[in-house]
């Protein structure tokens, strides 16, 4: 199930302030070349470089963030640079010899080695030549997966693995893309919400919303003791109307948070969901509705003491 294939409407009337008012840039907004500080002793993070005279200069457009001695510029370009341990949602783009290439919203495609997945039958053995030839039966181009970043190669390529039962091929659901910077690193990224919908908040900005537990296609990533021998059949998965509405609502809640530039995690998502209940599902498509939800959530989060 995928939502939005017929929906390319971008209703902007209610919100078309674009060329009439200048946006107020936040205080610490910088453009490349802006000198952040001349004082020595600061460590440079992403988005900065050190000039000959020792001053720290911004190299991207964005807002300056300072954590103790580490200065970074959170770029507006929002390039996702993965780190080991991140949970990501990706789409298979290529099937190659002994590996898959995955689109994970990073400069380079992620790599999923054949040896980094659990074989569907759950066996623990060396991958043989037959396995290599049968790769497409496990994952083919266009499939969605949830995975964890195992390591980072020298050139920045991310190596993924799905060697845990919570990762693997995703079943029917909806993808929504948000700026990667809105997804904070937390203990858990795969949430099975109390409303019966699971949400995978990929660190890379890709979010998967699905009525299935962990978003996953059942029966595709067996751990040893789960061998069943049966291949999953897409047609047998029943998705009810209520499920679809719930998924659509969550998707719009994520959109509201993204629009309001609020961090997206389970708490903010549930707040957003509660606020959205006053609207009918289809009303959430209006930009005013999203804006209002964003403001309500921001208010609620600041009163509860969360960083908004």
């Amino acid at each position, binding site marked *: 199930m995928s939502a939005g294939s017929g929906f390319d409407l971008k209703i902007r009337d209610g919100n078309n302030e674009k060329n009439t008012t200048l946006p107020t840039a936040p205080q610490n*907004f910088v453009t*490349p*070349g802006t000198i952040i500080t001349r004082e020595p002793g600061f460590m440079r993070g992403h988005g900065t*470089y050190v000039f000959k005279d020792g001053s720290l200069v911004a190299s*991207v457009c964005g807002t300056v963030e300072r954590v103790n001695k580490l200065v970074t510029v959170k770029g*507006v370009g929002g390039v996702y640079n993965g780190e080991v341990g991140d949970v990501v949602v990706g789409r298979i783009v290529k099937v190659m010899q002994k590996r898959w290439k995955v689109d994970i919203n990073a400069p380079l495609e992620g790599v999923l080695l054949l040896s980094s997945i659990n074989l569907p039958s759950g066996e623990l053995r060396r991958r043989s030549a037959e396995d290599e030839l049968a790769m497409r039966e496990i994952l083919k181009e266009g499939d969605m997966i949830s995975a964890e970043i195992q390591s980072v190669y020298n050139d920045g390529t991310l190596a993924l693995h799905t060697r845990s039962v919570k990762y693997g091929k995703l079943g029917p659901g909806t993808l929504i893309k948000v700026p990667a910077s809105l997804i904070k690193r937390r203990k858990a990224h795969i949430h099975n919400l109390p409303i019966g919908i699971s949400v995978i908040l990929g660190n890379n900005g890709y979010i998967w919303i699905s009525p299935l537990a962990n978003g996953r296609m059942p029966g595709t990533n067996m751990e040893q003791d789960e061998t069943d021998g049966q291949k999953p059949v897409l047609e047998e998965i029943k998705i009810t109307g209520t499920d679809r509405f719930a998924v659509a609502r969550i998707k719009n809640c994520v*959109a509201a948070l993204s629009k309001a530039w609020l961090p997206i995690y389970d708490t903010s998502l549930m707040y957003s969901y509660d606020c959205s209940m006053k609207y009918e599902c289809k009303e959430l498509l209006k930009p005013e509705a999203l804006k209002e939800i964003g403001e309500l959530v921001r208010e609620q989060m600041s009163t509860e003491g969360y960083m908004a």
Partner: protein
Amino acid sequence: MEEEQDFKSVRGLTRSEALYPRLPLINPETNLRQDGRHTSNIRPIFLQTGIRQGAKGSAYIELGTTKVICIISGPKDLPKKVDFSTTGLLSVEVQLVGGKVPERDVTLIKECLEATILLDKFPKLILEIYLTIMEDGGSAMSACITAAGMALLEAGIPLFDTLVGSTLLYDGKDFYLDPTRQEIEVVDLTDQEKNDKGGGLITMGYLPSREQICLFSMEGKMGPLVLDSAIDVLTQTNLQVYSVVKKQAAHLLVQEEDDPAENTN
């Protein structure tokens, strides 16, 4: 024109020239340029990013009738044939609709961009920059530079500085900033050179915070003192362009908030 008729260089007017005579640079009635500007005024700049969804960075600029689009793609893997390189590579293509951009100009723009981008940050990768001059109404090269600078900002590519560009026309007497095509055609540079009046068309690409000139292209002939003050004037003009780019850059933050997050199939 009081100059002597040089029979070798007499040429008849073509029909279009007779119908649309070249207007002098300054309108004698208003003492301003033909489009109402002062000699030091640049045309209002229309600059917008995000014009192509799915591109890493994109920008569209209008300077009067000059229209340029810049699309940035990458950084992506180097094709296998190309040697390993410790710094990133740039591939720059400049197209002019209905015309050809001289090789020299493309090289200048490429080197200008190489000086702006922190290539060390993406070794073994190639960044593709496509510039399309949809219409050249004068100062197309500086429009390309500013558009590329803006697109790079949107793309989030690490840069030394924000790149801006502007053009100046010298007719032997005054400086005309951001000249239109009509104005450029009025000043016949070879003629000026021969008669030792001096005249030139200068494009300057500038990095404002670093105060570095990263592109300097001059056609014509100018004395050293004149050239010196031309560079000063161009630098000031570039700072004006920079303030426009900075304002638009603030839009980038808001723009991400405006579009509800994308939803793909």
